[in-house]
C-alpha cells in the first residue's frame, strides 16, 4: 500500500518502507510505477482523478500524518499551493481559505516571479533583510503594487521579501485558534523566512515535521493501515 498526494503543483508519495518521493503534479505516474490501484490510498486536490482503492480528503490525511510526528498535536496549519487549511484536532473542526490567494503558496510564487527570483530563494533573502518593508494590503493584488511602491522608495529586494512574509503571516495567523501545540505543514513551510515571520506574528513557536510537504501522503498511508 502507498499514500499518494496529488496536489495543485506537486505530487508526493509515501511508501511503506518509510521512503518518500516528490515530483511535479503532471508527472504523478512516476510515483505509482508498478503499483496496482488497489494498493493506493489517494489524497489531495486530484485524489479522485488518479487510480485509487480509497480516496480521502487532505484534511483527514493531515490529521493522520501529523500524528506520526506529534502525537499530541492540537492544531494543524497546512499552507498549500491553492489554499490554507486550519484543522483543530481538539474539537474536530476545520477552516479552509480558498477564496483569496494572498495566504497561499500561489501568492509566494507570484511574488517570486515578479521579483525575478526562485521561490526557494525567498527564505534566504528574508534572513538578509535589514528592515522589513511595511505592507498593509490584505489583498494579494494590492500587495504587489505596494511592493512596487516600496522599491520605488528605495527598499531592497530583501526588505520587500521580508515585508511580504510578514503580511502573509498576519493573514494566516488570523485563522489560527489559541493553542500550544500547532503543527505547520505544506511545501510552503520549507521557507524559513515565512515560518520565522509567522512565529513572530503569532507570538509562539510552531512544530514543523522534517518533511512538511509529505505529511498528507504519509497520512493517507497511515489511514489505510488503520482502516484496511
Amino acid at each position, binding site marked *: 500500500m502507498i499514500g499518494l498526494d496529488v496536489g495543485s503543483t506537486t505530487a508526493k508519495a509515501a511508501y511503506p518502507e518509510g521512503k518518500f518521493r516528490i515530483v511535479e503534479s503532471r508527472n504523478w505516474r512516476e510515483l505509482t510505477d508498478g503499483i496496482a490501484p488497489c494498493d493506493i490510498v489517494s489524497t489531495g486536490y486530484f485524489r479522485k482523478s488518479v487510480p485509487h482503492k480509497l480516496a480521502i*480528503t487532505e484534511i483527514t490525511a493531515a490529521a493522520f500524518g501529523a500524528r506520526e510526528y506529534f502525537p499530541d498535536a492540537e492544531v494543524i496549519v497546512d499552507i498549500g499551493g491553492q489554499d490554507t487549511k486550519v484543522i483543530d484536532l481538539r474539537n474536530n473542526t476545520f477552516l479552509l481559505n480558498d477564496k483569496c490567494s494572498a495566504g497561499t503558496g500561489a501568492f509566494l510564487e507570484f511574488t517570486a516571479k515578479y521579483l525575478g527570483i526562485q521561490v526557494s530563494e525567498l527564505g534566504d533573502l528574508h534572513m538578509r533583510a535589514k528592515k522589513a518593508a511595511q505592507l498593509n494590503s490584505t489583498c494579494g493584488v494590492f500587495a504587489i503594487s505596494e511592493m512596487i511602491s516600496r522599491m520605488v522608495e528605495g527598499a531592497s529586494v530583501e526588505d520587500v521579501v521580508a515585508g511580504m512574509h510578514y503580511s502573509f503571516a498576519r493573514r494566516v495567523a488570523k485563522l489560527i485558534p489559541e493553542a500550544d501545540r500547532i503543527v505547520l505543514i505544506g511545501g510552503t513551510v520549507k521557507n524559513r523566512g515565512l515560518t520565522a515571520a509567522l512565529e513572530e506574528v503569532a507570538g509562539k513557536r510552531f512544530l514543523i515535521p522534517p518533511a512538511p510537504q509529505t505529511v498528507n501522503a504519509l497520512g493517507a498511508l497511515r489511514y489505510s493501515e488503520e482502516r484496511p
Partner: protein
Amino acid sequence: MILTSMSTVGITALVPPELIFACGHMPLDVNNHVPSSAEHPVSKLCAWTATWREMLLQKRLQVDSLVVVAGGDCHNALADGQRVALGGIPAHFFFYPFDGDTDYMEAQMQRLVLHLGGEVDKAKFREVGLAKELGMRLEQMRIEGRISGADAFRILISFSDLCGDIPAFMEQLVPEKRHEEAKFRVGLIGVPPIYKDFHEVAESFGMHIAYDELPYEFLRLGGNSMAELAKSYAGYTFARSLGYRLDFLERELARRRVDGVIHYTQFACHHLLEDDVLRRRLDYPVLTVQGDMPGSTPEQVKLRLEAFSEMLGRAP
C-alpha cells in the same frame, strides 16, 4: 395599489401563504426559482435577491405584485424589492416584529390583506392547515430516517407558496423513496443553500440531513384565524433575536438527534455575522460553508462536506 381579480403574488420567502390564498390569489415564492436560474446579475450583493430581482425585471418570472419580506429579515431584499418596484411591478413591504409583538404582527397582516383586496375567505386557512398537517407527518418520517433529506427538503421548501395551488400541491406530497441508511445525521441551519443539489451531495457523503432550519419554519407556522396566524408568525425565528432562535435551534437539534451541524451562509448576507455565536453556543461539530451564485454544488463546497463527513467518522 390594491389587487382585485385573481393575481399571482410573488413573495420573498416567508409571507403567510394562508393570507394570499384567503384573498383569492396565488402565491409564488420567487426564491424557489433562484437555484436553477442561469441569471448573472451585474449589480449584486446576495445572489438570492439579485437573481429574483433580475428575473422579475426581465419578465422571466411573471407576477402581478410582489410582497417583500423586509423588516426583521433582510435588508438586501428591501433594497432589491424597491428596485423591482421602481421597475414598474407593484410591491408591498411586509415587516415582522423583532420582539414577537402579536398586535404588531396582526396589524401587518391586516395591511397585507388590504393590499390583496381586503376580502378574506377563512376556509382557505383550514385548507392550508390540512396541507401543513400532512407536511408535519412527512417531516416526522424524515426525522425517523424513513425518507431522504433531499426529498423532505423538496417538499418543505414548497410550503412557502404551496406551488400556488393547494389541492394539486397536496397530491404531490408523496415522498419518492425510502432512503438508504446514512452514516451520520446532520442539521442544516442558516438560510437554505443556493445550490440545487446540496442535499443530494451531502447524502452522497453519508450524511442524512435531518433538519432544514428555515424551510421548517414554512411548515411549522400557521393558524385558523387572523389572531392565531399573528400569534404563530410572530414566532418566526429568523425575525427574532439570536437568543430566541438559538433556544429554538437547540431543542430541534436535540429532538432530531444530530451528530453535527452544517451552517450554510450566503455571500454578503448579514447572517454570516452570526456564525461565531452559533459555533460557540451549539454543542456539536459545526461546518460553516459559504455559497454565492446559484447552480450545482461547487467542488470547494463538496470538499468541505466530504471532509466533515470524514471528521464525524473520527469523532470520539
